[in-house]
């Protein structure tokens, strides 16, 4: 990564310590990472490795206890539309229709009503929910809700999409279809994606680079570049070699605790 361009995201020696009644919890220690524009990066690790904390710092929901989080070399001071977040539990507004959920961002930013309507229309079609434009979230399946959540951040001109185990609550079939759709969107739009998962296969299928994290305290262990050609064949020997290697690494994280 020796390119001269400014990275879209820079995480520089970031630590995060939570102070609660029970004492201090070190969620993240000395994490460093740069993401280039257009990259698809997965944060992979067992629970408690700080991957979600890192993502939330990138989103601006949390401030680092030490170190710096920068977007285009400027400190991240709080949540912003340029960094759209997709939550595992969707976070859709239950009182708004699909159309209005997707139009929420542009409307919040004071876009004229006609433009909001057009934008919503375009992104509803992009995620294939045209027939459900007037449905409310509780009428949708999990996969459809997550499509709305993705369309919502894209409609708001997010440059970077931060995804926190977005497909974790979906059934296997839906998850695979959404992975394909996400890659398709990513290829067409030139988005940058930072994607948290604990599923090795998902990370290999999606990522340009996999950032392996380990718990106690959370830290970045290794970064693997995945240079398998896309669309990746999950049954290919190369895919499986990588899976085996990452799996061994992931399980070694648990070993010291079990002993």
């Amino acid at each position, binding site marked *: 990564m020796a390119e001269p361009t400014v990275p879209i995201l820079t995480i520089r020696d970031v630590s995060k310590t939570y102070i609660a009644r029970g004492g201090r919890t070190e969620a993240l220690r000395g994490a460093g990472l740069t993401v280039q524009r257009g990259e698809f990066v997965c944060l992979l690790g067992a629970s408690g490795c700080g991957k979600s904390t890192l993502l939330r710092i990138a989103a*601006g929901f949390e401030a680092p206890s030490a170190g710096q989080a920068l977007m285009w070399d400027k400190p991240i001071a709080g949540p*912003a539309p340029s960094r759209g977040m997709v939550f595992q539990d969707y976070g859709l507004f239950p009182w708004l229709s699909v159309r209005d959920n997707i139009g929420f961002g542009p409307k919040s*930013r004071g876009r004229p009503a006609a433009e909001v309507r057009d934008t919503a229309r375009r992104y509803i079609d992009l995620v294939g929910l045209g*027939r459900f434009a007037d449905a409310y979230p*509780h009428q949708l399946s999990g996969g459809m809700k997550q499509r709305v959540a993705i369309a919502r951040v894209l409609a708001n001109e997010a440059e970077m999409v931060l995804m926190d185990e977005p497909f974790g609550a979906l059934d296997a079939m839906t998850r695979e279809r959404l992975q394909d759709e996400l890659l*398709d969107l990513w290829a067409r739009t030139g988005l940058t994606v930072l994607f948290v998962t604990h599923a090795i296969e998902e990370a290999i299928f999606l990522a340009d680079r996999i950032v392996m994290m380990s718990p106690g305290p959370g830290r970045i262990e290794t970064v693997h570049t995945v240079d398998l050609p896309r669309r990746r064949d999950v049954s290919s020997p190369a895919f499986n070699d990588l899976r085996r290697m990452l799996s061994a690494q992931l399980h070694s994280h648990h070993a010291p605790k079990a002993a």
Partner: protein
Amino acid sequence: MSAAIEGAAVPATLPTALPAQSQSPMPTAPPLRVLLKRLRGPALALVVPLATLAIWHFATADRPYSLVPPPAEVWLALRDMAFGGINDDAFSATLWTHLWASLSRVYGGFALAAAAALPLGLMIGRVPVVRALLDPVLQILRPIPVTAWLPLAMILFGLGASSAFFLVFLGAFYPILVNTVFGVRSVEPRLFEAAAMLGCTGPAQFLRVVLPAALPSIFTGLRLGLGFAWVVIVVGEMTGVQTGLGAVIMEARQLSRTEIVICGMGVIGVAGFVSDWVVMRIGRRLLSWSPSHG
């Protein structure tokens, strides 16, 4: 590469399933069954009132020394109150004046209570400083029954309509406030994060997130508040006002006109029921998005 598909097959199968059902051998049977089914609810609802009416009638009719007048006499009094021409006394044809007076106090006091309790509830629920400032005071004032306020209200607002107005206001205020605060405090934190990353921050969140998210709770509060306003109206109109259903009941009591008292009670019941029904319909329309309301 289209992203559509999922769910598309589900609605498509529905229309093909329906025609099979309509080929029933007896096309006239379903409407009758449907009609009977529809009448079941109202029929069941009438059982208890009719039984009460019957017991009331047999216990009081043709007993000259009964303190409770029979239903027929009450019905006569009600017709006289509404249209006059039967007894031609002080109560004849006064019903609409009294009803209007009570309605305006109930809705006036309720509207004022809503106007005060809603913004206050939003602030207490969402702004810690406001909560620390107001919550203890309100918690101490809340258990004081409206009836206990009566003497003080008469001193502060004098004998008359403004005291009644104030008491109705007080009765409706707390249910609305408490439910609004509850609604605001139970908004999923996730929704604030979602709004913030979409560019909706600070005070804008009140209108675009807090208010709609708390709306189901707020509506419960409004319904309870309006119910309490009707409860309190009789007490409120004991403060020496000349008109109103509560005033009529108090006056008839002093004259031992029990049939008028019962008329007043019945009218309050019906008016309260109708106003609750209206609020519920409005709520259902506004909350059609909510799986537990729509």
